């Protein structure tokens, strides 16, 4: 049994006469099978987004508004700025903005109908001196959202603006541009102290306290976390190919034989760059 396994592994990974001096995993048919498997995986995950499989397969999400607030205030504190207080009207305006983005299917600060971000502030009776908006999508964790914003000069400037005193968040799920998406809307503002509401009723007291209002968050744990599974599986496939190519290159360099194939060293460089890409690409997007 052990002997036959070793023989099979040798056939798959080591160049010898039996596999025409090329590891079996690097043969065209094996490469075609690997590519076919990857394409089937793509198809399964694309389909799962629109079927009941979605309940089992999918990225586990944990985007909490309280965590977003804490991380934002942490960044401000590190830059010597005061903490922002969560404002109910701003959070409602943020939720309204997210719903509008799903309804009109756009990924932009301005809607296709020309609605500006500031419309949602005034719609929720929030009158401001200064206001700003940060958007994010396709992130799975609160800290990654704030980290991505802090890496972008414009978003960083928005978060670290000293004039702002209040903040609102919305984390909403929906279908955006044909893809299941989690949108994060962050609205920052300074209320206009000169504004006097023209109402018959007594002015409402703003609920600025953290405990007074909690904007909705998204937390989902899938049976199979495809984000982790997908990344690890792809790294495994590429690592197997690189290993086979490295062994192939070593043995052929030693034997100094001629063979009509591609250069293993260049394949290794190419696949290595793809692995770097898999490690560094943060799939979320911000505007």
């Amino acid at each position: 049994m052990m002997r036959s396994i070793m023989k099979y592994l040798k056939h798959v990974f080591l160049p010898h006469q039996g596999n025409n001096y090329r590891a079996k995993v690097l043969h065209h048919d094996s490469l075609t099978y690997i590519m076919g498997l990857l394409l089937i995986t793509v198809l399964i995950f694309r389909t799962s987004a629109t079927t009941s499989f979605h309940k089992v397969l999918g990225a586990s999400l944990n985007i909490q508004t309280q965590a977003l607030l804490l991380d934002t205030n942490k960044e401000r504190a590190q830059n010597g700025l005061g903490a922002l207080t969560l404002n109910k009207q701003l959070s409602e305006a943020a939720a309204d903005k997210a719903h509008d983005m799903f309804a009109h299917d756009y990924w932009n600060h301005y809607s296709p109908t020309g609605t500006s971000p500031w419309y949602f502030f005034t719609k929720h009776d929030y009158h401001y001196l200064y206001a700003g908006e940060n958007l994010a999508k396709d992130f799975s964790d609160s800290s990654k959202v704030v980290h991505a914003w802090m890496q972008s000069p414009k978003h960083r400037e928005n978060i670290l603006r000293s004039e702002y005193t209040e903040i609102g968040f919305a984390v909403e799920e929906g279908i955006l541009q044909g893809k299941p998406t989690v949108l994060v809307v962050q609205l920052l503002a300074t209320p206009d102290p000169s504004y006097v509401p023209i109402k018959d009723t007594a002015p409402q007291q703003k609920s600025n306290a953290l405990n007074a209002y909690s904007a909705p968050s998204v937390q989902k744990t899938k049976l199979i976390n495809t984000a982790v599974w997908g990344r690890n599986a792809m790294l495994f496939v590429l690592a197997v190919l690189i290993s086979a190519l490295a062994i192939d290159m070593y043995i052929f360099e030693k034997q100094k034989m001629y063979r009509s194939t591609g250069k293993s060293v260049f394949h290794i460089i190419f696949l290595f760059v793809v692995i770097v890409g898999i490690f560094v690409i943060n799939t979320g997007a911000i505007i």
Partner: protein
Amino acid sequence: MKQIDFILLMLITIVEIIVLFVAPTQTKKVSLYLYAAYYVVWSLTVHARTKTLSVKIVLEYFLLAAIAVAALQVLFITSL
């Protein structure tokens, strides 16, 4: 293979790695697809010049590039 071919591949590879670390997410994704396309074109050009180009070699480079692109597709789809 001429030394310039190797230098060109290394140069583009270094540029690609820099892009992967500093560019926005969308640029990183596009640059990886462009890098895969460049790799295939570069290898075919080099093999054609050294008169070692064959269907077998074309298929090998194409399949490896396709595997890399498919792997990236899986990664982007499964992320959310």
